[in-house]
């Protein structure tokens, strides 16, 4: 009995592995086809670099006591984190539910969200060379701007970036599930973007915020999405275990919510356009 169960378990792991490989390789091929678009997308992530340029010459930076090197490293790290935690789930999901493209996916013995997740991961791989090129251009333009994180920093930072990506994916999934109830759930993404922009540390280091706003931000999931991985990558002193705990807690909170919303939503789904 025990042997059968463990054999079953092994075969289901094998099946999961096969599905993951098939999904990732097909999505990667698809993304490669649209590499021009992805290059443009990578270019659209320059916001932290623009903010770096403004901060460097601003009187505010000196007043908050941020060192020039610390500022540069923070924003460069934020640039990298942003590049590898891009999520556009709401846009595709809204279109797929409105046009009934979700219907054929529902017939397959696979939760459709996995397919979207695979598309995002494949896009990150396609994006990798473009980001490397942009960083190389920066290094040529201003040598000494880049730095090598220590191996342990790098491993922790990559882990934090991936968790931040999953957190963003889950948060967008929650909003995307509302597409089952409203035709314009995509508009809600605009609302979600605002706290992400101003509370995650994308446009200003959180330390420069007035204390009450800084404290408030720490109670939201947004600093975990950017400021924490960026600080890790930049080699700033951070509370590593607390940061990962926050990431884990937020993911653990949102995951069941997505599952519940999916189950309720799929009953309402009327396959418009079918």
């Amino acid at each position: 009995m025990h042997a059968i169960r463990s054999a079953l378990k092994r075969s289901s792991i094998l099946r999961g592995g096969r599905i993951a490989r098939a999904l990732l390789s097909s999505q990667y091929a698809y993304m490669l086809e649209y590499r021009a678009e992805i290059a443009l997308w990578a270019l659209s992530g320059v916001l932290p670099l623009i903010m770096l340029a403004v901060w460097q010459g601003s009187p505010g930076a000196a007043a908050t006591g941020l060192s020039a090197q610390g500022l540069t490293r923070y924003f460069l790290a934020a640039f990298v984190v942003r590049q590898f935690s891009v999520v556009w789930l709401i846009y595709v999901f809204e279109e797929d539910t409105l046009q009934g493209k979700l219907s054929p996916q529902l017939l397959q013995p696979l939760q459709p969200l996995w397919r979207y997740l695979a598309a995002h991961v494949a896009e990150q791989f396609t994006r990798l060379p473009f980001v490397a090129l942009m960083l190389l251009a920066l290094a040529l333009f201003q040598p000494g701007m880049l730095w090598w994180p220590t191996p342990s920093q790098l491993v922790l930072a990559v882990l934090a970036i991936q968790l931040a990506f999953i957190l963003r994916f889950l948060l967008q999934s929650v909003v995307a599930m509302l597409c089952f109830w409203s035709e314009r759930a995509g508009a809600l993404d605009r609302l979600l973007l605002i706290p992400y922009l101003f509370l995650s540390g994308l446009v200003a280091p959180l330390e420069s915020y007035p204390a009450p706003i800084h404290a408030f931000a720490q109670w939201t999931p947004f600093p975990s999405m950017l400021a924490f991985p960026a600080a890790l990558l930049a080699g700033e002193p951070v509370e590593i275990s607390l940061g990962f705990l926050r990431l884990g807690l937020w993911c653990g909170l949102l995951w069941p919510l997505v599952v519940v919303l999916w189950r309720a939503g799929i009953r309402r789904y009327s396959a418009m356009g079918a």
Partner: protein
Amino acid sequence: MLSRLQRYGRSLVCFWSTSLEAELEYQLNLAVELLSVLGNLAGSLLVLSLLAGPSRQLGGWSWNSALVVLGVYTLLDGFTSCVLQPNLSRIVSHVQNGTLDFVLLKPIDSQFWLSTRSFSPWGLPGMVAGLVLMGWGVAHGDHQPTAEALLIAALLLLSGALILYSLWFLLAGLSIWFVKIWNATEVLRYTLVAGRYPITAYPPGLRVLFTVVLPVVFLTTVPAEALLGRASVQWVAGSLATATLSLIGTRAFWQVALRHYTSASS
């Protein structure tokens, strides 16, 4: 000529009234937009105050004059949501699905149709917020603007809007060659964020980039200077010339693009 203009005017009224009717179906969007404008405004003001620091100035611009720049940015961002985004971001799907064929068959200029077909009222709160911010900044500034300064500022704003339109149209039109630059226009939205701050807040290298390559300076800084009564002949001439050239450029670009258009699945 006059009858042609009348025909286009009538079409425009028709286009916009039908899209207004369609958009007003989604009244909840108004709440979402109002919230998003307020949130954006609060966030932008906070970041500006952080950047300005205790000295309350940024790149040689006083707090109130930096507010005018932010106001012009907000106004143009609202204009983008009203007219540019609903129209130009659709060119991509027209090319991808082959529905551009139907547009080309209509007895109306295709660039006109693609640029004006839709109107989204959801950018209006942003435009109002921008105007209020500009008014606030000017009213609390050192001196009141003359009627002449206001006129020049309006002209420069118009030319800024035209430059913005050309940039959008150029990027959206590239989809004829690249078929799927899905939301490539979003790139512009993110890089144009640079216009939130006066050009002198940037290091010299970027100032050149934002003047010559991506003319952000003409979008926000130049109109703001005119409003504050600091317009200089060179910058006014530069803005008008850039607007004219970019408009002619989009026209020529669209004609070349259409010659390369091979319709979907062919």
